[in-house]
């Protein structure tokens, strides 16, 4: 189709060959060489090659124009070969012993080559390696492969990743979204402790679905919804209390509207429309709270709908209790709510009692004068 001619066709592909190894053998992730060896001993079969190939299969309609850059051997070359796609191999690795550093290097080199989209097969760990390596101008898409997938950068399946890639390279995608990259400390997880950190955001192509001639327009775009949420919050801000503002793009919109800089992956404190403190930790928060009324503004983080305990651990059980349940303001765009497909919000503060206390229903600000009543569950609840 002629409309595609002036759009980029340069695609980067990184396959993390060990991603997902741990999952099928019950190892809660695949970070680290020792675990990978253990997984292979337990009979794990690498998933990523197969999944990456599934994606590449979908690109055959544009195979003549496609310029595919990939890393050697199991880091992408094999997948490209399997699908019979022309490709350029860059970089070098020690086959069978790839590391996170290889992923990061590959991502960096591909950005330098000016790829239009970077596709990676992996999990949260891989996404984290990539976010550290590139700047935020590069469009990235994850092929779901890993064991842990708290991040929101993955397509729902390899096939849909393929279609999204195709559409993106054909210039049929006109929207992007900022998607969270999160990762859980696997060592801690194996000891039964979940500590997920929000590492940042990657730009991901956002599917422009064929617009149907339905009778009611959809709820509008995420960005517009964030704007209206911000107005709702600001119009109802009180003078006295401190506002503890959790991480996220939705909460960022509130601060932007106030003309303030938000720490995207951290917690900020606002008082009387001014930034009182940025990127605070628990101790600083406790100090600030001393003798003052306060509110918490949070938005669910990641694809799983965590309100507390993932990426905003600074807002600890102690702080939550001090602020009080009635003073927690939850904000979420309708798009974010829809993505949960009816699953409840989750809390996992690390303190079971706080989790139980937080669970139940909460009012969610979804727009200007628009609310939802939504369920909160805690980890371990049925």
């Amino acid at each position: 189709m002629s409309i595609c001619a002036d759009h980029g066709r340069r695609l980067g592909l990184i396959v993390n060959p060990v991603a997902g190894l741990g999952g099928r053998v019950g190892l809660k992730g695949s970070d680290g060489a020792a675990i990978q060896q253990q997984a292979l001993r337990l009979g794990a079969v690498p998933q990523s090659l197969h999944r990456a190939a599934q994606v590449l299969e979908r690109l055959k309609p544009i195979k003549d124009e496609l310029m595919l850059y990939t890393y050697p051997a199991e880091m992408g070359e094999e997948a490209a070969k399997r699908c019979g796609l022309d490709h350029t191999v860059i970089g070098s690795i020690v086959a069978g012993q790839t590391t996170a550093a290889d992923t990061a290097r590959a991502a960096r080199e591909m950005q330098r080559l000016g790829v239009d989209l970077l596709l990676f097969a992996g999990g949260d760990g891989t996404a984290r390696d990539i976010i550290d390596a590139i700047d935020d101008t590069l469009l990235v898409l994850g092929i779901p492969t890993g064991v842990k997938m708290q991040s929101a950068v993955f397509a729902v399946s390899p096939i849909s990743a393929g279609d999204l890639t195709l559409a993106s390279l054909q210039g049929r995608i006109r929207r992007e979204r900022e998607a969270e990259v999160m990762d859980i400390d696997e060592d801690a997880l194996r000891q039964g402790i979940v500590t997920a950190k929000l590492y940042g955001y990657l730009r991901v192509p956002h599917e422009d679905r064929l617009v149907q001639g339905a009778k009611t327009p959809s709820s509008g775009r995420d960005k517009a919804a964030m704007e209206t949420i911000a107005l709702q919050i600001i119009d109802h801000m009180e003078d006295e209390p401190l506002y503890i503002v959790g991480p996220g793009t939705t909460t960022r919109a509130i601060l932007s509207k106030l003309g303030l800089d938000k720490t995207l992956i951290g917690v900020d404190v606002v008082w009387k429309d001014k930034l009182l403190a940025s990127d605070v930790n628990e101790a600083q928060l406790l100090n600030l709270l001393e003798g003052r009324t306060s509110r918490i503004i949070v938005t669910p983080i990641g694809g799983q709908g965590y309100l507390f305990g993932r990426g905003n651990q600074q807002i600890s059980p102690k702080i939550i209790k001090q602020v009080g349940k009635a003073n927690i303001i939850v904000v979420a765009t309708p798009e974010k709510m829809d993505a949960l497909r009816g699953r409840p919000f989750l809390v996992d503060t690390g303190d079971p009692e706080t989790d139980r206390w937080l669970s139940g229903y909460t009012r969610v600000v979804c727009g200007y004068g628009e609310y939802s009543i939504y369920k909160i569950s805690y980890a371990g609840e049925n």
Partner: protein
Amino acid sequence: MRYKVWNMRRRCPKASGGKDALGEPNAITWWLIKEAVRMSENRAIVYPYIPNSVPRVKQEMLKGVGARSEEDFYEDVPEALRLKKPLNLPESLLSECALKRHVEGILSRNRTCQECLSFLGAGCYQHHVPAVCDEINQRSEFLTAYAGEPYDDHGRFQALFEYASMMGELLNMDVVNVPTYDGLQAAATSVRMAARITGRQEALIVKTIHPAVLSKIRDYCAPNLQIRLLDYDAKTGQIDLSALQAAISSKTAAVYFENPSHLGSLEAQGDEIAEIIHDHGGICVVGVDPISLGVMAPPVDYGADIVCGDIQSLGMHMQFGGGHAGFIATRDEEKYVMEYPSRLFGIAPTSVEGEYGFGDVAYERTSFAEREEGKEFVGTASALWGITAGVYLALMGPQGMQELGEGVMQRAKYLMAKLSKIDGVKAPIFAAPHFKEFGVNFDGTGKAVAEINAALLNYKIFGGKSLTSEFPELGESALYCVTEVHTKADLDRLVDALTEVVS
């Protein structure tokens, strides 16, 4: 049949004393009931509009899904919510023949504007409806379609795009919506659009507005807007510019006036009004009768920003007020387009060279005024009348619209002149140009409009709409309407009748 079963249900338990411990019918009773159902279903009515009302088919389907009866499907409807007896409705008229006779019998109590000579207007107009308009809007393909995709229902999209395009020519504007309910809704939405675009919360409405439009604006804009009324000049019926100057401010979102006004006078100061509005950063909203635009200037030419109105004149029968549909037109600027709550159909190329495709423009419209968050709502409105108005404009063409407009004005002028000659009758009320409607004052006759209209009915004439209750300042006045359907003989007949009635 079902009724009999219910009777049994009520009777049987008594006859057999057949209730269980909970007062429910016992097993024998249930058996009797089931038998009755079975027997009745053997003789069940087969409904012509319900193919699966054939008992055999029904049984087959029930069996197929593993249900005992349709009752199973209502498992989620609690007993307490179930109706325990059949609805108390009139006896059905199962045959089409009987139904036709029944309905026609009722309708025969009407007397139509074909049987009588009508001078009623006031928002609903007796223009000639070309036969082609009816032919097209009763095409099953259009009549029974709904909301299909541009691929299944290409014809609807193209017809409505063409409607909007022809209205665009008439109005000299590049954006026209898929019709909304009626002119009332179009006016109310136009005012709210203006409020969203300007971020202001006050609208000035000229008092010569159609009272129904005003009522609608009041209800529809109540949540967000202050409505203030503007006086008109008692002599000309036109806007009192000094009143406008005094009332308008930087808080004014919109000024709305109609041209022609509800009272028939044309507003000849449109450009001055628009200038005053624009000087204050407001939006000029004009309601217009589209059928006048073959001869009259489209409001955008004298400065209107949003133009709205009703298309009933353009090929719809009066239908006791059921032929209405509203339009809203603006310039092709993003700030206007994004505030439309209506659907807007656009044209675009397809994957095949030379093919026209259609779709919804700016489908996910997001209001610029986020606080209002008012894209309003959109639903089933009046699309079929839009298609019909398109047919009408295509038939009429530029020359037809011009000739029609000229002819209507000539007839109106003729009638006004003739009526004025009757003792005690004044027509028009206002010293202004008029299009097809004008006020007639009867104060000099000593008779009330109600009295006059009642007398005219004896001549098989529907006199003009009384203005006495809605515009008491005009005394005993009525609003008369003349269209191209009126012949000289019709007009003379009215004049003769009125002469007799008021003498």
